[in-house]
């Protein structure tokens, strides 16, 4: 896992891109699993949860970054949690106002964003040390990575389990949906499958790097 910076670093495109691949919260750091499995039974739910979580991540981390010199070390976790809970409450009301159907579909998992370890972890490891600009960009990257992970699960589960994507039917009437995919076991299987793929890609890359770095041996 890449080491997290203690000194202020310049904001580059990498600050954003890191969250998508190397430090992808779900596939690499294995954080925030609960909502990923629970609301990924359809693509629209997955997208909504991803956006809501990204908002909370960026907003709360920005506030933490702004206040980072004022928060004494001893009460930092308590402070972070209060800040995160505030933004989650705001998002909760916002979603209820936007669409009651979406709110019922996501259920208690909106409020459970507050215990998404990715947000608290980021606040502790990054936002408390970096200036506002870097925090926002990095937060957007991590949030995007999270949303991407959610979507990759949600899309697969919805296509296989209901034959549609974002509610639009893809196949004809003869399509027999693989129902288990939208049920709980499906969530576990699909996430496990994605982790397998990620692990395989990484192993492949590592092998290629090893081959390039090592001088030729007699095989």
């Amino acid at each position, binding site marked *: 896992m890449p080491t997290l910076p203690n000194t202020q670093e310049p904001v580059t495109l990498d600050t954003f891109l890191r969250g998508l691949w190397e430090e992808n919260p779900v596939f690499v750091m*294995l*954080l925030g*699993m*609960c*909502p990923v*499995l*629970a609301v990924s039974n359809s693509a629209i739910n997955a997208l909504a949860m991803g956006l809501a979580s990204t908002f909370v991540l960026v907003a709360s981390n920005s506030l933490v970054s702004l206040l980072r010199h004022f928060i004494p070390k001893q009460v930092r976790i*308590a402070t972070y*949690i*209060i800040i995160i*809970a*505030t933004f*989650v*409450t705001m998002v*909760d*009301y916002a979603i209820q106002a936007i669409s009651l159907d979406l709110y019922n579909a996501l259920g*208690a998992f909106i*409020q*459970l964003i*507050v*215990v*998404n*370890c990715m947000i*608290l972890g980021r606040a502790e490891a990054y936002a408390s040390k970096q200036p506002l600009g870097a925090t926002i960009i990095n937060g957007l990257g991590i949030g995007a990575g999270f949303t991407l992970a959610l979507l990759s699960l949600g899309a697969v589960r919805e296509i296989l389990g209901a034959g549609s994507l974002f509610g639009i039917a893809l196949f004809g009437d003869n399509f027999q949906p693989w129902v*288990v995919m939208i*049920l*709980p*076991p*499906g*969530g*576990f*299987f699909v*996430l*496990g*499958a994605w*982790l*397998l793929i990620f*692990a*395989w890609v990484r*192993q492949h890359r590592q092998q290629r790097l090893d081959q390039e770095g090592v001088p030729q041996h007699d095989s």
Partner: protein
Amino acid sequence: MTADSVTFIFLNAAIVNNFVLAMFLGICPFLGVSAKRETAWSMGLAVIFVMLVSSICAYGINWMLTEFEIEYLRLICYIAVIASAVQLVEMTMKKYSPALFRALGIFLPLITTNCAILGVALFQTSREYSFMQSIAFSLGAGVGFTIALMLMAGMRQQLELAKVPSISQGAAMTLMLAGLLSLAFMGFAGLGSQHG
């Protein structure tokens, strides 16, 4: 058993709608602590205790918030109570069972961010359970969590001796196993409901 009887709620939370395998709550500790049976058991007990305490406090807080019509503070209050309950468990464990405290290590304070605990509080509120129903619900959820954890720990300990492809080691394997467990638990659907 009627739909809102205490026994039904307990069985439902523990088995039919198991918190980990059906509701997807508590996945992080489930993946992290399920490697050994002893740690799984201790974690399970700690979770049951914290769930029970949080559930009772959540019931009281919710009642108070509704009285004063400040429900919007609910989430902040719940999470504060949970953090305090975990602190309490930590201090008690440190005093009376230091070995256990060391064995659980970082996972104990992580119970605070365990979505299962907050999940118990949130669900019992949204389903408007009475006090006894809340107790049954939190106990059922804790017991169910422990069952799932123990089952997973047992399987993983067995698997340590087996030859498994390297890319699937770790989280991927655990998730696949969890999927199979979840599938198995689906067989409990309908337990406790009347057949009229």
